[in-house]
């Protein structure tokens, strides 16, 4: 049964439990692993993992003071900063150039053949634009069709769209339907990145705990990278995702907990520009106060 | 106050209710009607000739409505059979029209005129004809002035008259009437009786008429049936009324028959009332 997450607070630890909001997704493998194997408890932490249908909701729950920390993809979280100035990005715990892929219907082999592109608003849309830009194809020559992830493989198979760009499991799902993987985002230099985010007010009094969480995740990420089976088992039991699927997803990701780099910051400026162009944001936000570059290196001793 | 035959004014006589319609013979053969364990009507045997006018009398709650419901095909007898011209009755039909005791039977959402036109409309009678028919029966029951009102805008007696017009306009072969004139004043009632009598004679339909008014039964009926007090009510006695029409309820024969009937029903009522802890002194 996967109900353990909510009540996994270790006995004996002092203080209020730390509530961490996560999505129900293999991208949160280190969290599931740490929770399942009692690593938080071993570090003297009392942690409650709170699962949300979508990672975005987990971050929003910080605004509602329902959780203290959360994990989510950078692109999604960026847009949330406008309404939630108290969000603080602490570190990155995973990145991958292979997690998002372009999948096309049979007969289509290169970007120039794609006339209709299936995307999901946000991350997928952004990466798809970069894909066409990288292939020097003008964006106005492609029609972007927005849909929800689970229907895109079928729509591509039906021919409603020529291709789509999505995260796992939808690329493999499409392959099962007879579609072809064209490429992944890494091939044109873009990665899918997850942030660990905290509530600034909470963080003030809990720097030490946050650091400990980072340490535990660092450890858990290493295990995830080394032993995908073990991590997949944890995902299966905590999030009801089939082990094989979880493992497949886990293997596509670089599990490495780290601080922000200049390259990251540059990518955020680009994304900000994308959102302003799209009208999602009225003007580019100054996100420097929200992204605590250096926090990880300062608080977490490199092993 | 002796009354001769009635006549409705104006155009009505020209479009007289389909003189071609013939009454139908009815045969009730050991009819028993139950509600669950309760036997309301038990083994009723009656033969009604085509075109006969039957009045049904009996104490309150004996089973008159139940019996005619069965004839109308609404109630399935637990035992026995009812035949209309040799055909077993298996459900409601155009042949048997019913004026219900309660005026809930009117269709609230239709005007009085539309209520009256309902049957002909369902039968596919052309609009013109339907209207003429409705006009005729509206004035027959004295409701021409409220043809376009809804049933809830009428008084109890007017609603009952509307129901009568609706059934008669449909020209059924057998007309069942459950205390149709109960809510009318004596004079309106007389006019209605006369109209009914006229229609009956013109159309030759069979009528079974439930009433509590013995005089009414005497004025109208070819034959009067008296039911026993329920439960397990049955036909107690049958009186042929041989008085020549038009009849005078104050005539000698009529008065003698009245007395007999009163005695007959009275005995049943007393039986019923005694069972219910009530007595009637001095009678």
């Amino acid at each position, binding site marked *: 049964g996967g109900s353990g997450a909510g009540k996994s607070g270790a006995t004996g630890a002092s203080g209020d439990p730390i509530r961490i909001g996560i999505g129900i997704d293999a991208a949160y493998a280190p969290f599931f692993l740490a929770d399942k194997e009692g690593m938080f408890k071993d570090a003297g932490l009392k942690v409650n993992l709170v699962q949300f249908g*979508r990672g*975005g909701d987990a971050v*929003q729950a910080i*605004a*509602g003071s329902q959780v203290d920390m959360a994990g989510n993809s950078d692109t*999604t979280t960026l*847009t*949330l*900063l*406008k*309404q*939630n*100035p*108290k969000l603080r990005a602490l570190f990155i715990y995973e990145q991958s150039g292979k997690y998002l892929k372009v999948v096309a219907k049979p007969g289509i082999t290169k970007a120039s053949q794609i006339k209709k592109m299936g995307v999901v*608003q*946000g991350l997928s849309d952004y990466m798809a634009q970069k894909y066409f830009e990288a292939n020097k194809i003008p964006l106005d020559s492609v029609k972007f*069709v*927005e*849909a*929800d992830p*689970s*229907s895109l493989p*079928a*729509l591509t198979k*039906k021919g*409603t769209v020529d291709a789509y760009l999505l995260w796992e499991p939808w690329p493999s799902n499409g392959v099962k339907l007879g579609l072809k993987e064209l490429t992944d985002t890494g091939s044109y230099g873009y990665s899918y990145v997850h942030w660990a985010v905290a509530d600034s007010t909470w963080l003030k009094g809990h720097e030490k705990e946050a650091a400990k969480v980072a340490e535990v995740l660092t450890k858990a990420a290493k295990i995830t990278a080394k032993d995908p089976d073990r991590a997949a088992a944890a995902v299966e039991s905590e999030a009801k995702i089939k082990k094989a699927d979880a493992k497949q997803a886990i293997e596509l990701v670089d599990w490495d907990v780290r601080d922000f780099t200049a390259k990251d910051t540059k990518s955020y400026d680009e994304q900000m520009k994308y959102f302003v162009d799209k*009208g*999602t944001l009225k003007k580019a936000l100054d996100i420097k106060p929200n992204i605590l570059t250096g926090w990880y290196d300062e608080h977490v001793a490199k092993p | 106050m002796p009354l001769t035959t009635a006549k409705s004014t104006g155009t009505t006589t020209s479009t007289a209710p389909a003189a071609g319609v013939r009454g139908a013979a009815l045969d009730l053969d050991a009819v028993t009607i139950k509600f669950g364990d309760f036997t309301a009507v038990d083994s009723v045997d009656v033969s009604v000739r085509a075109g006969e006018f039957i009045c049904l009398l009996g104490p309150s709650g004996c089973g008159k409505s139940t019996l005619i419901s069965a004839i*109308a*095909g*609404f109630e399935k007898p637990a035992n026995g059979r009812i035949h209309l011209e040799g055909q077993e009755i298996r*459900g*409601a*039909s*155009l042949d*048997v*029209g*019913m004026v*219900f005791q*309660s005026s*809930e*039977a*009117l*269709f*609230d*959402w239709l005007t009085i005129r539309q209520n009256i036109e*309902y*049957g002909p409309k*369902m*039968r596919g009678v052309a609009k013109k004809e339907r209207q003429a028919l409705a006009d005729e029966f509206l004035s027959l029951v004295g409701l021409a002035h409220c043809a376009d*009102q*809804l049933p*809830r*805008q009428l008084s109890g007696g007017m609603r009952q008259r509307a129901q009568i017009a*609706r*059934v008669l306009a*449909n020209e*059924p072969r057998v007309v069942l009437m459950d205390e149709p004139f109960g809510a009318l004043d004596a004079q309106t009632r007389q006019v209605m009786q006369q109209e009914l009598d006229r229609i009956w004679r013109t159309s030759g339909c069979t009528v079974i008429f439930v009433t509590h008014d013995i005089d009414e039964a005497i004025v109208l009926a070819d034959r009067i049936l008296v039911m026993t007090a329920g439960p397990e009510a049955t036909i107690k006695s049958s009186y042929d009324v041989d008085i020549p029409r038009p009849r005078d309820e104050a005539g000698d024969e009529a008065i003698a028959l009245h007395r007999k009937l009163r005695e007959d029903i009275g005995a049943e009522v007393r039986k019923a009332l005694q069972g219910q802890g009530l007595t009637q002194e001095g009678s």
Partner: protein
Amino acid sequence: MTLAETKPAPARPASDKSRRRGQKPNMTGSLRRGGLFIVSIVLGLVVWQLVASHFGPALVASPSETWQGAADLWADGTLWQSIWASSRRIFIGWALGVVVGAPLGLLMGRITIVREILDPYIEFFRFIPPIAFVTLAIIWFGIGESSKIVLIFYTSVFVVIINTISGAVSTDETKLRAAASLGASKSQILRTIVLPSAIPHIVTGARLAMGNSFLTIVSAEIVAAQEGLGALIWTSRNYGHIDWVFVGIIVLGALGFLFDRVLRVCVRPLRRYGVKV
């Protein structure tokens, strides 16, 4: 609507005619109603403002923020486009639901065999959230309007069916008997007796179905909707645009209110069938 109280004297179901005449008491009545309505709105706004200030703009957009958001969306045409797109979908899906549901309900209510055959399916499918059918709807009906309309139809049709059945089974027995012995055939009875008797129930069903159509608009527009209030709410929510989420919500509520008022006015001529709304 003035029939509500039990005792005030003019409680007797008066004629349509008498009730239509605007007499003095009705004048003050509608004045009071108008006043109450404005008070309701003002009160709602005050409570909203209080809630908003309590939770802050990250969670609850205040009336003024929402107003600003609405103005922005209006200026670039998005709002009007969304309203129009969603209204169309809701209206068509709902109307289909009523047009299909009412006859089905009548048949199911009065014909045992029809009910026995259809009942298990209806009692099964009406409990399944439309979100489960999003993928199927897209595959079958494409990413155009049809799939969205079908999903809205899906959530409205059952409500109409169930309510119509309940009206059909409670048709007055005496009237059914009267019609049958006036020579009406089964199908005529269905049309001329059962239908009129069930009209108040059908109207209630239609009003509830309208509500359900609105509730489904988000699920329906999650899919391949570039425009529409549901899409607006969903994407704004994903981007943390609380003010736009609130614009969507308020507009949906107001639109629903409006639709219901219009529906109520449209069914006024049905008053003789006992419709009281």
